[in-house]
């Protein structure tokens, strides 16, 4: 999962190709998701990621996972998280073929698509983020905590929203609460510094 890192909270690419882990984190809090929508962020994913999130059968299905699936189906109906398709030629690229044993298929397909469209790739797996930086511009590899910090910095989220988001996120059994807290403080510091 994502840890605190030196993201520039003053900037955030609004168009993201997102992997399943980040979809789970964004949809863990509808407050966070709605704020991102209002800030005109757009999330796209590959068909493979949709398969992982909606069709693949895990060994156990928790209540939180069922809620996540319901939320994703609903937001998809409203046009977000629309699936994009990668081609066989994309998979045949040498550097992608070479990375196939180090990155999960969802990450691989998302990186391929982000590179192809020149958009950002969003993942909360810190090792996937580091590996992705080898294949694309590092500033175009983003995370949910980065989105959260940017929304605080731009005042799209208030102090009250922060606690609500963390509470909603925790209820869904997601792991980023501490990182959100740190990002919140960093965003406030940055906002203060930018005023001086």
């Amino acid at each position, binding site marked *: 999962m994502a840890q605190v890192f030196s993201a520039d909270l003053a900037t955030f690419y609004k168009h993201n190709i997102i992997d399943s882990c980040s979809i789970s984190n964004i949809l863990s809090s509808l407050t966070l998701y709605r704020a991102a929508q209002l800030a005109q962020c757009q999330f796209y994913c590959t*068909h493979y990621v949709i398969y992982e999130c909606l069709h693949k059968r895990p060994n156990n299905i928790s209540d939180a996972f069922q809620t996540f699936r319901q939320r994703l189906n609903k937001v998809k109906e409203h046009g977000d998280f629309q699936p994009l398709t990668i081609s066989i030629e994309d998979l045949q690229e040498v550097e992608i073929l070479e990375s196939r044993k180090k990155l999960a298929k969802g990450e691989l397909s998302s990186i391929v698509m982000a590179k192809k469209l020149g958009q950002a790739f969003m993942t909360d797996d810190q*090792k996937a983020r580091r590996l992705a930086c080898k294949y694309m511009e590092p500033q175009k590899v983003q995370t949910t905590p980065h989105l959260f910090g940017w929304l605080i910095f731009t005042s799209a989220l208030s102090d009250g929203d922060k606690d609500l988001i963390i509470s909603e996120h925790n209820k869904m059994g997601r792991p980023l609460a501490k990182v959100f807290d740190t990002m919140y403080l960093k965003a406030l510091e940055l906002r203060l510094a930018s005023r001086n």
Partner: protein
Amino acid sequence: MPLDLMLFSSKLKVLLNQLLLSDTEVSDSTGIPFQRFHELVTGQAEPSGDEVLILADFFKCDYKLFISNEKITSISQTEILFRRFSSDFSKEDRMAVREVYYMAEHECFLQQLLNKTLGNRNFSQLPIGGVFKQHGIDGATSLRKHLGYTDTEISRNVFDDMRRINFHVFRRRLGNSNISGVAFKHPEAGKCILINYDQDIYRQRFTVVHEAAHAIFDLDDQNEINVSFAKWDKSDLKEVRANSFASAFLLPPQIISNQYRSIKYNDDEFVAKANQLLVNPETLSIALLKATIIDKQEQERLKHKKIPTHLKSDAELPASLSANARHRKTALLQRGLSDYYVRLCFDAYAQELVSLAKVAEMLLLSEEEINDIKFLYGVNE
């Protein structure tokens, strides 16, 4: 490179046939619409990259298998296996075998990536003479020496012993309890052993060595797979050889002659001795009979004695584990996830060589489950 649609379609057909799956089942499990999947199977449409990834995930194989125009792959090997033993492998067991192939491939990849094996001590033994039983005894003696065991020392972890000679060992529950183990030569990973976790732990210890014998003596380029059954043909000399190998490895004659010749023991002591040696009473009774320490009548009586399951020792589930950790690790083992394999995955993750989602893929677990396993293995970010 353009995709050969007919070859792609034939690979899909082989997998469907091997795993006894219908188009509807694959469509339901993957979200690929039925009509679209039918077009892919019949070679009427070219798959997208996403569909290739989805099918690779569903069928537990490297996606390169689908996008390359190579014909020889691990699926042709399982084709031979399932054709030869078609009535012995249920649908679930076929998928279990597919998963073991998948894990063996990843275990080999991780060992290379981390430059880490348990010993890297390749072992080979050529049979000398025409007595198969003796091949087994000689082979076991050489292997024990190769692994550094003294004549009277017992192997406490036979699974790791076989990993030390570069075999990939997986314990996995199979529905057919008559299948005790499978030895096969993976096209990339090399020699692999699948042990049916359905057997009791001491039987699994015997099976892993028995399968190792098949891997050493019987697997070659012409014969890449061997399946062993609990009920076996006594005239099958390869089985006789594998059994004598396993017996001589686990209970070398010196242990019996040194420690048991002059001992008179009651039934409880006999059972305790068998447990000390990590073998079932039947195995010890046979060894004592062969050493002429007991007669046939006594052996018949002793072989039915039982060691209570909770007293048996499993090196892959050490006594130091808490009840909760033992329960969870047992569940992992039943699915083929040995401590060795899980740790390789997490070592690669710790060294930032693979992502966590990749670890989940290699362990055939979901993201939720992987977080639980990380905790069990004390893995930190």
